[in-house]
């Protein structure tokens, strides 16, 4: 088992290095490069441009720059934000908590809703509920995240006035903690959650149907176990094992969806940061976010493999 773990982790290292290299290449391949920000400012003379070049270490040969970038990255130093003159990691850390709250709640919501929908569809196959859920699933898959967010915001906040439509807090200095202000987090979390509920519930349904016809379920029933236990203890447990991988695979969706959702709801998180810096072309921040999201995706995949291996005893002995 440990061998399985370590193999996966070691295999990921070249991937992580590759991610760092690609980000570097990407940034420098952009027209104007890392200095694009300064290109058009007033009062920019050629002297100043040259000085900035030296300051940012851009006069060094490219391989040296790449080496420095990788070295810094390994120590957690992502460079400094050009606009704010602060380390990128600082800028990003400030915004991590809001995004974390949002994404965790969204994933939890989606799992709960998908479980309810998926199990109901499986148990009452071909019933009205099943078809209705399938229909909603399809629509949810086709709806653009930003439109869903817009419609939720406009309908529940603007039209009905039930929930606030923007921001995480009620005003400067009034953020009382992780679990407060739930009414503000509901709409953005729902927007993110509804994007995956559809496919997840269908997946659970299929998985449950596969398991429910297995012999060991029949045995459980024959043993005289109450139906509820049969479903909960045996069917669900086995059906959910592959579900873990599905959740992990969809993590990129939450990352990209967060950008749009945070923009629509003015949520002060990393997604908003990404969007805001796009306009100002603050490349160090953008690269930091890019590396962070790619690393997250790689880690999520590894985690999925590991959890799957842990949950399914048949894999442990490979």
């Amino acid at each position, binding site marked *: 088992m440990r061998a399985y773990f370590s193999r996966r982790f070691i295999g990921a290292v070249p991937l992580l290095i590759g991610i760092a290299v690609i980000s570097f290449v990407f940034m420098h391949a952009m027209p104007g490069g890392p200095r694009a920000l300064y290109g058009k400012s007033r009062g920019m003379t050629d002297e100043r441009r040259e000085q900035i070049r030296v300051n940012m270490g851009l006069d060094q040969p490219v391989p040296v720059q790449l080496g420095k970038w990788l070295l810094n990255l390994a120590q957690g130093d992502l460079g400094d934000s050009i606009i704010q003159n602060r380390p990128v990691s600082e800028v990003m850390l400030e915004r991590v908590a809001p995004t974390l709250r949002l994404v965790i709640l969204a994933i939890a919501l989606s799992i709960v809703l998908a479980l309810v929908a998926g199990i109901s569809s499986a148990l009452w196959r071909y019933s009205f509920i099943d078809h209705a859920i399938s229909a909603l699933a*399809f629509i949810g898959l086709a709806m653009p995240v930003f*439109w869903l967010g817009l419609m939720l915001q406009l309908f529940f906040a603007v039209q009905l006035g039930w929930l606030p439509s923007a921001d995480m807090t009620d005003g400067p200095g009034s953020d009382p903690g992780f679990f407060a202000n739930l009414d503000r987090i509901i709409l953005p979390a729902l927007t993110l959650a509804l994007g995956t509920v559809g496919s997840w519930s269908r997946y659970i349904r299929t998985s449950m149907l596969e398991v429910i016809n297995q012999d060991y379920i029949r045995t459980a029933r024959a043993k005289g176990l109450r139906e509820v236990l049969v479903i909960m203890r045996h069917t669900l447990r086995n059906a959910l094992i592959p579900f873990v991988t599905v959740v992990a695979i969809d993590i990129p969706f939450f990352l990209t969806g967060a950008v749009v959702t945070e923009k629509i709801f003015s949520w002060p998180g990393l997604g908003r940061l990404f969007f805001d810096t796009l306009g100002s072309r603050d490349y160090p921040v953008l690269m930091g976010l890019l590396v962070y999201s790619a690393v997250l995706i790689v880690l999520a995949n590894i985690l999925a493999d590991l959890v799957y291996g842990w949950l399914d005893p048949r894999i442990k002995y490979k």
Partner: protein
Amino acid sequence: MSQTSSSLPTDFFVSPTRVAWRRFRRHKLALVSVVVLVLMGLAALFAPMLTPYGMDDQDLFNQNAPPSSEHWLGTDELGRDVLGRLLYGGRVSLSVGLFAAVISTTIGVAVGAVAGYFGGAIDNVLMRLVDLLLAFPAIFLLLILFATIRPNVTTVIIYLGVFGWLYLARIVRGEFLSLREKDFVVASRALGAGAPRLIWRHLLPNVAGAIIVTTTLEIAFNLLAEGTLSFLGFGVPPEVPTWGNMLTSASSTYLTAPLLTIVPGVTLTVAVLAVNFIGDALRDALDPHG
């Protein structure tokens, strides 16, 4: 003893295409979707003939108007006819979706075929590269790219295409690797067939099904991606209407002109839905294990 009254089947040879078509026909939703998409496509194509308004004709005395006999869907915040913009927007959105997918397919099949056919080191290197690039969310890269170089419609198509071939390459490569060892390929090779012939006449036709299905899903993804990019303001130039950027400023007028927010979104959703239904039906129809 009863006598069989049925006549002998006259077409006992049915080509795979006909089989697939017959299976496709059974999916009513997909058939409806095809009709819907064709109608959308035609409407977009003949936009100039279907609406008297240009895509950018402003009428600042008539902003945010509700539907009327002159403006069937009302006007937007600059007085532009919504229906007209919807039709012209369809041109951009649909063509971006389609052509970017074509580019992705071409690149993806090429890379996947090379990796899958030659195997070994080439396969290793190519797939490592694909895995690496797959770790990045495409939307992020596209956003950064388009924030730097203000794109036009053609550029959007090209870059969406260039960023979307990874998934297909993996699939094609996988199929090639497994088909390579099958008897009919080995036999052809033994008879002296060279790489191009093998790839073109033997391997590709067997992967065609998976390619078609994946391309369809890619179209759906491109539609959504273009919508999102335009909505955020980083897609086509703002004067060019697309279903995405029609929604950019629509939220501020929700209470007075809800149609502005609802119509483009519904259209986009329906288009994506249709493509998804078709994709599902194609998957069923072309699946050899069906």
